[in-house]
């Protein structure tokens, strides 16, 4: 969809951490290992950026979507760890433009040294993808 950039990120060799990349591949977006400063330029060129990632600390398969406000990283090096808010802020500072940004996060079950998603995440994936499609459809209207 014109003006929309989907970025899914994570390590596919660490179990459910590969969710973001799998989702991005299914949605035709950018599947990357981690967020890096080089993404600031394509982010700045988009009207809407959708980030997709996995997280620990919640019921496996449960997902949430929240708005991301651009903000500088607090006391972090921005080299080993870049988060969506900092990336959007970098886009504004470097290229003069910060798009609307959303972060879809699904809680994973297993982040061990393994390939493939857990059953809980696998089962919930299509539901989250449907929500992304709905979001995109709403944005287009």
């Amino acid at each position: 969809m014109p003006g929309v950039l989907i970025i899914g990120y994570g390590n596919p060799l660490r179990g459910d951490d590969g969710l973001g990349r799998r989702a991005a591949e299914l949605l035709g977006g950018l599947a990357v290992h981690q967020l890096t400063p080089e993404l600031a330029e394509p982010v700045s060129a988009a009207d809407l950026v959708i980030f997709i990632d996995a997280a620990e600390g919640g019921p496996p398969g449960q997902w949430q979507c929240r708005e991301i406000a651009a903000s500088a990283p607090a006391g972090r090096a921005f080299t080993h760890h870049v988060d969506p808010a900092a990336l959007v802020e970098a886009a504004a500072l470097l290229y003069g433009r910060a798009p609307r940004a959303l972060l879809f996060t699904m809680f994973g079950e297993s982040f061990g040294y393994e390939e493939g998603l857990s059953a809980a995440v696998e089962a919930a994936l299509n539901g989250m993808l449907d929500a992304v499609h709905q979001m995109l459809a709403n944005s287009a209207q």
Partner: protein
Amino acid sequence: MKRIVIDPVTRIEGHSKISLHLDEQGRVQEAYFHVTQFRGFEKFCEGRPFYEMPSLMARICGICPVSHLIASAKACDAILAVRIPETAVKLRKLINLAQIVQSHALSFFYLASPDLLLGMDADPAKRNVFGVIEARPELARDGVRLRQFGQQVIEWLGGKRIHPAWVVAGGVNGKLSPENHARILGAIPEALAIAQRTLDWFKTEIERFREEVRSFANFPTMFMGLVNEHGGLEHYHGKLRFMDANGRVVADTDPCAYAENIAEFVNPWSYLKTTFYKPLGYPDGTYRVGPLARLNLVDLCGTRLADQEWAEFRELGRGAVLSSFHYHYARLIEILFCVERMQALLNDPAILSPHVRAFARQNNDEGIGVSEAPRGTLIHHYKVDDQGLIRDANLIIATGHNNSAMNRGVLQVAKHFVNGNKLQEGMLNRVEAVIRAFDPCLSCSTHAAGRMALAIELQAPDGEVLDSLKR
């Protein structure tokens, strides 16, 4: 005896810590650079078919996988006993040069520029890439563009930016398309312009770092690296040159005879091995590799703009430039050279030839591949059985060659800047910064992943915490 521990060393690739040992008066007596990773690639590849090695070895690193692809493929070429097509040589050189550009850009713009732009004593909360973005966005944009350029070229050539499977035993597994040829050539002018203006800017900044120039691993050592047949700058193949601290060539050797000239040993405080020039023993045989070494070793770079910059660079030292602070300067000159060299390769019509791979079966039981990675000389040495399965693998990684100099550099900086009775953040940043100047790739050189902690404590011998800093 008091001990200061810096853990982790920040804004480098990989995981390490530094320990400083002080006497009763708070003066630094000894310093150690501990590489805390262990990965074991040399061991777990045993039993694998040799032709898998380029792709396997590329997984050593996410920043310089192409270096391992190149050295590994060259070792496999030797096992096949093939001379690969000339176009394959040109294409391997092209991807190698692109990688050096993106790796050097990462080092200079993302890791080192916070210190160089904002100052060694700047607020740590700001002294990072984001601080550079806020303070000087045009510099940050240039860094991002240059890194993108290198990575994009790798992707156009090899199909993906990280761990491309394109470099293989016998050559490369696909020709360069006219479309990608045009894309890469089209991107050259911007990359050249960025390299030149970054150099112009940095040369005006060096004067601010007089003390660092004087104290950052600034001592006589030998230097080692590849040079081409004309004594020019070379990253793919050539003679392995050893030079002394006065700039005299000690020996031009066959890289495959490395074991006659280089010895390794293990230090108990680090997973990173140390190497030295065998004929002189240790520590007299300590040498440095990488951009600073390469620009000392050569008789010329071989491209117009880089040669002009190189001539100016060499005025920094009679015979050889010794201060490791000047690794940053050398890195920028190498970026310029690499982009110029890429342009020359692309302007050669032969680079579009479809003849890009030689095919053969195993014809030797051993193969050695040597190339110049961004950080220095890289050696892959494989022994195989009759089935072509790896029996033994020895990797000598660029950063390992620099281990001795890095340790000495840490001690030199610590003695110069650290007051053990009162810790100041800028002191300790300089101890880290000397390591950053070498741009070590620690994941490459020890083959594991560590965990990040963040605390600096000054402890008395009985363990009482006397002072502490946290970032």
